[in-house]
């Protein structure tokens, strides 16, 4: 087990810069997720930790050891590949034993350790099968067993669940977490699936275009997104470009760029409501759909606007309501109640609570 430090790393492929200015510190035993859309640099970073790529600039450390240019076979990392990369000419046992045999471990010990780990992934009775005879979920567990049996310092998982169907995915998610807790192993998990990231991780790093935008716990990432990319990549969110009209110690007044006279909002001036990084540059007002309230009559509170329901979509647990307010389209999530019976065309009042709004910086050219 080890902590990982990534210091000022850049990776360029020819002229294309895949990862830039990356600084991360992953703690010992932590379940850490790289989250981002495809091509964002998350897999490149993982492969630099595994040793398949060497950084163009910067340093990779495991604990205090400089691993920047150590070849993959000397890093003692266990990696699970997206397509599992099981050796097709070997049985389950031989696949799992491979890493031990490379380390010249005696055949008796190999046997006990392989059977131990196969028991842990609940595949003991499949030891002599060819890997091609296994189902996707079983292959996945062989890949996990093969990575864990060498007792790696770090476990690397590259989108391991993306080839499984939805039901198996839920099962494997808890399986991976169970094994990770059992082995107490530092784990890096790469995914583009926000639900996986939020539900499994101790901390998440959100990537886009080779840059890490935010590192934090799942609730920090969701509730206090650092900018409009993080906010809109994780979960649904209403984003309105705004500018500040007035700023005092307890309150901020902002107006929307669109239709500023009618769209004025009041926000609490706390670190939660006003992102530290939002002190200059373009600003966006953000609010999650579940934080907006729909009222049947006007209330005498700030941020209450009259609107018209445009669309209602029923999702089961929640109902998505789209409301047009002063030319702006807001998305509101309501929990499913029998009483909630909104129809398109209905007149409603919409409240955006001043403690639920968050002002965040807008990345240039990336306005959503």
């Amino acid at each position: 087990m080890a902590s990982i430090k990534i210091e000022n790393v850049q990776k360029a492929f020819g002229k294309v810069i895949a990862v830039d200015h990356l600084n991360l510190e992953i703690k010992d035993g932590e379940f850490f997720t790289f989250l981002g859309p495809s091509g964002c640099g998350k897999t490149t970073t993982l492969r630099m930790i595994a040793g398949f790529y060497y950084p163009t600039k910067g340093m990779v450390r495991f604990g205090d050891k400089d691993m920047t240019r150590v070849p993959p076979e000397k890093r003692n990392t266990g990696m699970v590949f997206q397509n599992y990369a099981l050796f097709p000419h070997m049985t389950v046992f031989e696949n799992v034993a491979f890493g031990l045999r490379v380390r010249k471990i005696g055949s008796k010990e190999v046997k006990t350790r392989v059977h131990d780990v196969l028991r842990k992934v609940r595949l003991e009775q499949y030891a002599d099968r060819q890997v091609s005879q296994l189902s996707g979920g079983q292959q996945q567990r062989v890949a996990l067993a093969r990575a864990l049996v060498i007792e790696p310092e770090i476990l690397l998982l590259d989108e391991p669940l993306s080839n499984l169907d939805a039901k198996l995915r839920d099962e494997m998610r808890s399986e991976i977490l169970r094994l990770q807790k059992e082995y107490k192993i530092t784990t890096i998990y790469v995914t583009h699936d926000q639900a996986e990231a939020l539900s499994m991780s101790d901390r998440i790093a959100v990537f886009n275009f080779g840059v890490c935008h935010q590192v934090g716990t799942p609730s920090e990432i969701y509730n206090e997104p650092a900018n409009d990319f993080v906010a809109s990549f994780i979960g649904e969110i209403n984003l309105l470009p705004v500018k500040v009209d007035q700023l005092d110690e307890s309150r901020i007044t902002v107006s929307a760029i669109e239709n500023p006279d009618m769209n004025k909002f009041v926000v609490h001036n706390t670190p939660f409501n006003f992102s530290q990084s939002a002190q200059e540059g373009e600003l966006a007002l953000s609010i999650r759909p579940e934080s907006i309230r729909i009222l049947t009559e006007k209330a005498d509170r700030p941020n209450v606007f009259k609107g018209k329901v445009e669309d209602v979509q029923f999702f089961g647990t929640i109902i998505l309501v789209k409301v047009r307010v002063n030319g702006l389209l807001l998305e509101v999530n309501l929990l499913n109640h029998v009483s909630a019976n909104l129809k398109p065309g209905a007149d409603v009042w919409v409240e955006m609570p001043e403690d639920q709004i968050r002002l965040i910086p807008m990345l240039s050219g990336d306005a959503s």
Partner: protein
Amino acid sequence: MMKNRDNRLTLYLLIPVLLVLIAYVLYPSVRTILESFHKDGGLTFGNYQDFFTQESKTNLQALWNSVYISVLSVLVSAAIGIPLAFIFNRFDFPGRGFFATAAIMPIVLPSLVGVMAFMFLYGETGLVPNAIKDLFGLDEVPFKIGGVSGILIVHAYTMYVYFYMTVSSAINKIDPSLEESAYNLGASRFQVFWKVTFPLLTPAIVAASLLVFMISMASFSAPFLLAGGFRVLSLQIYFSKINGDMEVAATQSVILSIVSISFLLFMRWYQNRKDYRMASKGIGAHRSEVNNPLLKWTMVATGVIGVIILLLPHFTILLLSLVPDGTWTWQTYPSVFNFENYRLLLQDPNIFKPLKNSLILSFIATAGNLVFGVLASYVLVKRKFVGKSFVDILVMIPWALPATVIGMNLIFAFNEPNIFSFGNILVGTFWILPLAYFIRHIPLVVRSTNAVLEQLDDSIEEASRSLGAKWFYTFRKVILPIIMPGVLSGTLLAFVESVGEFPTSVLLYTISNRPISIEIMNQLRMFNMGQAAAYGMIQITLIAVVLLISNRFFGVKAEQSLS
């Protein structure tokens, strides 16, 4: 700085590959080109001037004949192969599977043996014309093959398979929903065929046409035995060499190569330009069952007759191999049959020697092909380096060059000592033939290995390395075992092709290591048909066994690496 270790490994792997290619592919070709500019002790275009302005016009005529025969071969092969591919892949009728397999039987016949079978079947004293003569009480044989018609028939027989195989695989790759959607949009059967199906097949047809054109430009055995006074360029090279006109032979070689290579380049360009790969995966073949009984049984009958025609050469060789020499002289048909020829083959050391020679020579060449092929293919498929396309082209050169030219290249390169032969003269020694066979089959082994390596996901190698295995361990324990079936099937094919190799053998053999194909030719000259046929049968059996092994044990359609 970055990836230093990996780059160094790539370099270590690349150097031997490049050395072999430069020494035995590039350098000999360059020697031939240089030789073609030699005349009267100076460097001139004189040889080329002679080639085109020569008064007798022999060379120009030979070039024209080669092109003319090749164009006809393409047309005839296409006319047989394309309809067959359609019938066997689109319709279902009794015996279809068997006929479809029988249709590729011509590739089991080594070229020289095939030509020999055709001579015995349809030649002046051939079994078929004579049988017809006797049957109808004619005074003379009704037909005989020889010259252009002979060459053409042999070409059609052996080369339609390329059309058949490429078009078949293209037909099976067409997503049935494409045609169904055309019907759904209101197209008639006729329109669907000409507007959808046929255009999708054009890349395959063009590829097969170019392939057949190149192969028949290079064809040597058929003209060698059947041409009579008719001259083609590949044969002219041989005659010039026999007459000692080495500079003329070099010039002819260069011109023949230019034609072949321009077709290869055209083919590559065309294939890159038109890519009709289907987007959908896992397409099921759909065949319509033939319900009309008349049509159905006509198809079956045609199939049966077709199979008889296709297998007649094999059967003839088998029959002839059972006729002891000296028992079939003036008679129209042989009358004595026994295993005398096979007994002699195994017991008479003189008769066994060529077989043994061929096996040894081919074994050495193929062992080289195996090692070189795996190395070259691994570097080309799995490693990144500058100049990859150059190495790629070097690997493909022996495929584009006619066998006769490869033979000549080796003569020019190794009839004098140089560093690539470690200071020895190789021509006239044992080593020149294994070298020739090795060079001839570089492309086959590299390409069949490429095919399996491309299937192998990079993550397999990475998984092994992240589990702690070094590169060499990974290569031995993971990569090699996975790709071995594909590699072996290509290599075995190279082996049997080497055993049957005629054009380079005839240019380079020595009496003490004469291979089987040369001995077949000698036996034919002495009218020992039985013995020649027995040699032929051994080759046919070898090829059949190899194809069977590949299909059964390696699950590889080996015949596909031929095209």
